[in-house]
Protein backbone atom coordinates (compact mmCIF):
# COMPACT_ATOMS: atom_id res chain seq x y z
CA UNK A 1 0.00 0.00 0.00
CA UNK A 2 1.71 3.18 -1.20
CA UNK A 3 0.17 6.59 -1.65
CA UNK A 4 1.55 10.06 -2.15
CA UNK A 5 0.96 12.91 0.29
CA UNK A 6 -1.34 14.80 -2.09
CA UNK A 7 -3.47 11.74 -2.87
CA UNK A 8 -4.16 11.00 0.79
CA UNK A 9 -4.58 14.60 1.93
CA UNK A 10 -6.97 15.36 -0.95
CA UNK A 11 -8.98 12.20 -0.27
CA UNK A 12 -9.31 12.90 3.46
CA UNK A 13 -10.11 16.58 3.04
CA UNK A 14 -12.73 15.93 0.38
CA UNK A 15 -14.34 12.75 1.73
CA UNK A 16 -14.04 12.68 5.50
CA UNK A 17 -16.99 14.55 6.99
CA UNK A 18 -15.18 17.38 8.78
CA UNK A 19 -17.25 20.46 9.72
CA UNK A 20 -16.21 23.72 8.03
CA UNK A 21 -13.33 25.53 9.65
CA UNK A 22 -12.46 22.61 11.92
CA UNK A 23 -9.04 21.82 10.43
CA UNK A 24 -6.53 22.86 13.06
CA UNK A 25 -3.03 23.46 11.85
CA UNK A 26 0.11 22.70 13.79
CA UNK A 27 3.07 20.56 12.95
CA UNK A 28 0.38 18.30 11.58
CA UNK A 29 -3.20 19.40 10.98
CA UNK A 30 -6.06 17.62 12.66
CA UNK A 31 -9.85 17.70 12.62
CA UNK A 32 -12.80 15.86 14.14
CA UNK A 33 -14.81 13.51 11.93
CA UNK A 34 -18.45 14.40 12.53
CA UNK A 35 -21.51 12.63 11.15
CA UNK A 36 -24.99 13.96 11.92
CA UNK A 37 -23.52 16.19 14.66
CA UNK A 38 -21.85 13.20 16.33
CA UNK A 39 -18.06 13.10 16.47
CA UNK A 40 -17.02 9.58 15.62
CA UNK A 41 -13.26 10.03 15.33
CA UNK A 42 -10.47 12.48 14.75
CA UNK A 43 -7.93 12.53 11.96
CA UNK A 44 -4.45 14.00 11.80
CA UNK A 45 -2.70 14.68 8.51
CA UNK A 46 1.00 15.26 8.07
CA UNK A 47 2.28 18.34 6.27
CA UNK A 48 2.70 17.54 2.58
CA UNK A 49 6.25 16.94 1.47
CA UNK A 50 7.21 17.98 -2.04
CA UNK A 51 8.46 15.98 -4.98
CA UNK A 52 5.43 13.67 -5.13
CA UNK A 53 6.86 11.56 -2.31
CA UNK A 54 4.94 8.67 -0.79
CA UNK A 55 3.69 8.87 2.78
CA UNK A 56 5.72 6.57 5.02
CA UNK A 57 3.99 3.30 5.86
CA UNK A 58 3.66 4.03 9.60
CA UNK A 59 1.95 7.36 9.04
CA UNK A 60 -0.29 5.90 6.35
CA UNK A 61 -1.53 3.16 8.67
CA UNK A 62 -2.06 5.67 11.47
CA UNK A 63 -4.30 7.77 9.20
CA UNK A 64 -6.14 4.61 8.16
CA UNK A 65 -6.77 3.72 11.81
CA UNK A 66 -8.04 7.21 12.55
CA UNK A 67 -10.47 6.96 9.64
CA UNK A 68 -11.63 3.66 11.19
CA UNK A 69 -11.09 1.80 7.93
CA UNK A 70 -9.53 -1.56 7.17
CA UNK A 71 -6.72 -1.82 4.64
CA UNK A 72 -8.94 -2.58 1.63
CA UNK A 73 -11.46 0.11 2.54
CA UNK A 74 -8.65 2.64 2.90
CA UNK A 75 -7.35 1.77 -0.56
CA UNK A 76 -10.87 2.33 -1.94
CA UNK A 77 -11.13 5.57 0.01
CA UNK A 78 -7.93 7.03 -1.42
CA UNK A 79 -8.38 5.54 -4.91
CA UNK A 80 -11.69 7.43 -5.30
CA UNK A 81 -13.86 4.30 -5.44
CA UNK A 82 -15.34 5.10 -2.02
CA UNK A 83 -17.33 8.32 -2.09
CA UNK A 84 -18.08 10.58 0.87
CA UNK A 85 -21.61 9.11 1.05
CA UNK A 86 -20.32 5.54 1.10
CA UNK A 87 -17.82 6.44 3.84
CA UNK A 88 -20.58 8.01 5.97
CA UNK A 89 -22.78 4.94 5.49
CA UNK A 90 -19.96 2.64 6.54
CA UNK A 91 -19.33 4.67 9.68
CA UNK A 92 -23.04 4.72 10.55
CA UNK A 93 -23.09 0.94 10.15
CA UNK A 94 -20.09 0.71 12.47
CA UNK A 95 -21.89 2.62 15.24
CA UNK A 96 -25.54 1.66 14.83
CA UNK A 97 -26.45 2.74 18.38
CA UNK A 98 -25.32 6.28 17.73
CA UNK A 99 -27.15 6.76 14.46
CA UNK A 100 -30.35 4.74 14.71
CA UNK A 101 -32.52 6.81 17.03
CA UNK A 102 -30.29 9.75 17.81
CA UNK A 103 -26.83 9.95 19.29
CA UNK A 104 -26.03 9.71 22.96
CA UNK A 105 -26.13 13.10 24.60
CA UNK A 106 -22.86 14.61 25.64
CA UNK A 107 -22.68 14.06 29.43
Amino acid at each position, binding site marked *: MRFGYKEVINAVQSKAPVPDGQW*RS*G*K*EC*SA*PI*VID*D*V*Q*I*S*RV*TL*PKAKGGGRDI*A*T*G*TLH*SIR*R*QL*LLCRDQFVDFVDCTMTNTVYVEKMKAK*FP*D*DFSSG*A*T*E*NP
Partner: protein
Amino acid sequence: MAERQQDTRHMESPFKILRKYLAADTEITEDLSADAREKQAGLDILLDLVGQYEPLDETHLRVIEIQQKVGRFPRWDRAIYENLAELRESVSELQKQVNELKEMIHERAKICSATMYELGDSQYELTIPIQIVLEEDEVETVARIPELNIYASADTDTEAINFLKQEVIRLYEELESSDGKLGPLPRSWRATLRRLIVKKHG
Protein backbone atom coordinates in the same frame (compact mmCIF):
# COMPACT_ATOMS: atom_id res chain seq x y z
CA MET B 1 21.85 -66.55 -17.11
CA ALA B 2 25.32 -67.72 -15.98
CA GLU B 3 24.49 -71.28 -17.10
CA ARG B 4 23.42 -70.04 -20.49
CA GLN B 5 26.68 -68.09 -20.83
CA GLN B 6 28.69 -71.15 -19.78
CA ASP B 7 26.93 -73.37 -22.30
CA THR B 8 27.64 -71.03 -25.17
CA ARG B 9 31.36 -71.15 -24.33
CA HIS B 10 31.55 -74.93 -24.95
CA MET B 11 29.35 -74.87 -28.02
CA GLU B 12 30.53 -73.68 -31.40
CA SER B 13 28.80 -70.46 -32.32
CA PRO B 14 26.16 -70.87 -35.07
CA PHE B 15 27.72 -67.88 -36.78
CA LYS B 16 31.10 -69.61 -36.88
CA ILE B 17 29.49 -72.62 -38.50
CA LEU B 18 27.74 -70.38 -41.00
CA ARG B 19 30.97 -68.53 -41.75
CA LYS B 20 32.73 -71.84 -42.52
CA TYR B 21 29.88 -72.92 -44.71
CA LEU B 22 29.74 -69.70 -46.62
CA ALA B 23 33.48 -69.57 -47.13
CA ALA B 24 33.43 -73.08 -48.58
CA ASP B 25 30.40 -72.46 -50.73
CA THR B 26 31.34 -69.17 -52.32
CA GLU B 27 33.87 -69.73 -55.01
CA ILE B 28 34.23 -66.68 -57.19
CA THR B 29 33.56 -67.37 -60.82
CA GLU B 30 34.16 -65.06 -63.75
CA ASP B 31 30.79 -65.41 -65.37
CA LEU B 32 27.84 -64.93 -63.05
CA SER B 33 24.22 -64.84 -64.02
CA ALA B 34 21.99 -62.06 -62.62
CA ASP B 35 20.48 -64.49 -60.16
CA ALA B 36 23.90 -65.68 -59.01
CA ARG B 37 25.12 -62.07 -58.61
CA GLU B 38 22.15 -61.29 -56.42
CA LYS B 39 22.85 -64.40 -54.38
CA GLN B 40 26.51 -63.39 -54.12
CA ALA B 41 25.58 -59.87 -52.88
CA GLY B 42 23.30 -61.39 -50.25
CA LEU B 43 26.07 -63.72 -49.14
CA ASP B 44 28.48 -60.80 -48.91
CA ILE B 45 26.12 -58.93 -46.59
CA LEU B 46 25.65 -62.05 -44.52
CA LEU B 47 29.42 -62.54 -44.27
CA ASP B 48 29.82 -58.96 -43.25
CA LEU B 49 27.29 -59.38 -40.45
CA VAL B 50 28.91 -62.60 -39.32
CA GLY B 51 32.23 -60.78 -39.19
CA GLN B 52 30.75 -58.14 -36.93
CA TYR B 53 29.18 -60.65 -34.57
CA GLU B 54 30.36 -60.64 -31.00
CA PRO B 55 28.76 -62.81 -28.34
CA LEU B 56 27.00 -60.81 -25.60
CA ASP B 57 28.70 -60.84 -22.24
CA GLU B 58 27.01 -61.04 -18.84
CA THR B 59 26.62 -57.28 -18.48
CA HIS B 60 24.96 -56.83 -21.87
CA LEU B 61 22.59 -59.68 -21.20
CA ARG B 62 21.69 -58.16 -17.85
CA VAL B 63 21.01 -54.81 -19.49
CA ILE B 64 18.75 -56.44 -22.07
CA GLU B 65 16.91 -58.32 -19.33
CA ILE B 66 16.30 -55.08 -17.39
CA GLN B 67 15.18 -53.27 -20.55
CA GLN B 68 12.68 -56.03 -21.23
CA LYS B 69 11.37 -55.89 -17.66
CA VAL B 70 11.02 -52.10 -17.73
CA GLY B 71 9.33 -52.34 -21.10
CA ARG B 72 6.52 -54.36 -19.52
CA PHE B 73 5.61 -51.43 -17.17
CA PRO B 74 3.50 -48.44 -18.27
CA ARG B 75 5.35 -45.43 -19.65
CA TRP B 76 6.74 -43.78 -16.50
CA ASP B 77 8.80 -41.19 -18.32
CA ARG B 78 5.78 -39.15 -19.39
CA ALA B 79 4.37 -39.12 -15.84
CA ILE B 80 7.78 -38.08 -14.53
CA TYR B 81 8.00 -35.17 -16.98
CA GLU B 82 4.48 -34.04 -16.09
CA ASN B 83 5.28 -34.12 -12.38
CA LEU B 84 8.51 -32.25 -12.99
CA ALA B 85 6.60 -29.53 -14.85
CA GLU B 86 4.17 -29.23 -11.92
CA LEU B 87 7.05 -29.10 -9.46
CA ARG B 88 8.78 -26.42 -11.49
CA GLU B 89 5.58 -24.36 -11.47
CA SER B 90 5.18 -24.76 -7.70
CA VAL B 91 8.80 -23.81 -7.08
CA SER B 92 8.41 -20.74 -9.26
CA GLU B 93 5.27 -19.71 -7.29
CA LEU B 94 7.10 -20.29 -4.00
CA GLN B 95 10.03 -18.22 -5.21
CA LYS B 96 7.63 -15.39 -6.03
CA GLN B 97 6.08 -15.58 -2.55
CA VAL B 98 9.51 -15.64 -0.90
CA ASN B 99 10.46 -12.49 -2.80
CA GLU B 100 7.23 -10.78 -1.72
CA LEU B 101 7.89 -11.76 1.90
CA LYS B 102 11.46 -10.47 1.67
CA GLU B 103 10.08 -7.15 0.42
CA MET B 104 7.50 -7.05 3.24
CA ILE B 105 10.12 -7.80 5.88
CA HIS B 106 12.35 -5.14 4.41
CA GLU B 107 9.52 -2.58 4.55
CA ARG B 108 8.25 -3.64 7.95
CA ALA B 109 8.73 -1.11 10.69
CA LYS B 110 10.64 -1.93 13.87
CA ILE B 111 8.14 -1.71 16.70
CA CYS B 112 8.94 -1.06 20.34
CA SER B 113 7.24 0.50 23.32
CA ALA B 114 8.20 3.47 25.42
CA THR B 115 6.77 5.37 28.35
CA MET B 116 5.69 8.98 28.45
CA TYR B 117 6.18 10.47 31.93
CA GLU B 118 5.15 14.07 31.37
CA LEU B 119 3.52 16.23 28.73
CA GLY B 120 6.13 18.96 28.46
CA ASP B 121 3.60 21.63 29.39
CA SER B 122 3.53 23.33 32.77
CA GLN B 123 -0.27 23.56 32.60
CA TYR B 124 -0.77 19.79 32.47
CA GLU B 125 0.45 16.93 34.59
CA LEU B 126 0.16 13.22 34.06
CA THR B 127 -1.32 11.19 36.92
CA ILE B 128 0.24 7.99 35.63
CA PRO B 129 2.80 7.39 32.85
CA ILE B 130 1.39 6.61 29.39
CA GLN B 131 2.56 3.62 27.38
CA ILE B 132 3.29 4.56 23.80
CA VAL B 133 4.21 2.57 20.69
CA LEU B 134 7.14 3.54 18.51
CA GLU B 135 7.27 2.34 14.91
CA GLU B 136 10.52 3.04 13.15
CA ASP B 137 10.83 2.47 9.43
CA GLU B 138 13.41 3.51 6.85
CA VAL B 139 11.93 6.98 6.49
CA GLU B 140 10.62 8.11 9.86
CA THR B 141 9.45 7.22 13.35
CA VAL B 142 5.80 7.18 14.30
CA ALA B 143 4.86 7.48 17.97
CA ARG B 144 1.30 6.54 18.82
CA ILE B 145 -1.08 5.79 21.64
CA PRO B 146 -3.41 3.04 20.40
CA GLU B 147 -5.99 3.62 23.14
CA LEU B 148 -6.43 7.26 22.11
CA ASN B 149 -5.94 6.60 18.37
CA ILE B 150 -3.47 9.45 18.00
CA TYR B 151 -0.04 9.54 16.41
CA ALA B 152 2.81 11.86 15.59
CA SER B 153 5.60 11.32 13.10
CA ALA B 154 9.10 12.74 12.90
CA ASP B 155 12.62 11.92 11.80
CA THR B 156 13.66 10.62 15.24
CA ASP B 157 12.08 8.92 18.27
CA THR B 158 12.55 11.92 20.54
CA GLU B 159 10.93 14.35 18.14
CA ALA B 160 8.04 11.96 17.50
CA ILE B 161 7.43 11.58 21.26
CA ASN B 162 7.52 15.36 21.74
CA PHE B 163 5.00 15.90 18.94
CA LEU B 164 2.84 13.17 20.43
CA LYS B 165 2.77 15.01 23.77
CA GLN B 166 1.42 18.07 21.97
CA GLU B 167 -1.12 15.86 20.24
CA VAL B 168 -2.30 14.45 23.60
CA ILE B 169 -2.85 17.97 24.96
CA ARG B 170 -4.62 19.05 21.77
CA LEU B 171 -6.97 16.05 21.93
CA TYR B 172 -7.67 16.69 25.62
CA GLU B 173 -8.49 20.35 24.98
CA GLU B 174 -10.65 19.55 21.95
CA LEU B 175 -12.68 16.96 23.79
CA GLU B 176 -13.07 19.07 26.92
CA SER B 177 -14.22 22.08 24.95
CA SER B 178 -16.42 20.10 22.56
CA ASP B 179 -20.04 21.16 22.72
CA GLY B 180 -21.19 18.60 20.17
CA LYS B 181 -22.25 15.03 20.70
CA LEU B 182 -19.49 12.50 21.07
CA GLY B 183 -19.57 9.03 19.62
CA PRO B 184 -18.37 6.00 21.59
CA LEU B 185 -14.70 6.36 20.69
CA PRO B 186 -14.30 10.07 21.53
CA ARG B 187 -16.25 9.46 24.76
CA SER B 188 -13.84 6.71 25.73
CA TRP B 189 -10.81 8.89 24.82
CA ARG B 190 -12.14 11.69 26.99
CA ALA B 191 -12.72 9.34 29.92
CA THR B 192 -9.17 8.00 29.58
CA LEU B 193 -7.67 11.48 29.29
CA ARG B 194 -9.60 12.69 32.34
CA ARG B 195 -7.97 9.89 34.33
CA LEU B 196 -4.52 10.56 32.91
CA ILE B 197 -4.31 14.36 32.88
CA VAL B 198 -4.67 16.93 35.59
CA LYS B 199 -4.93 20.53 34.51
CA LYS B 200 -3.17 22.88 36.89
CA HIS B 201 -4.99 26.09 37.72
CA GLY B 202 -3.36 29.47 38.12
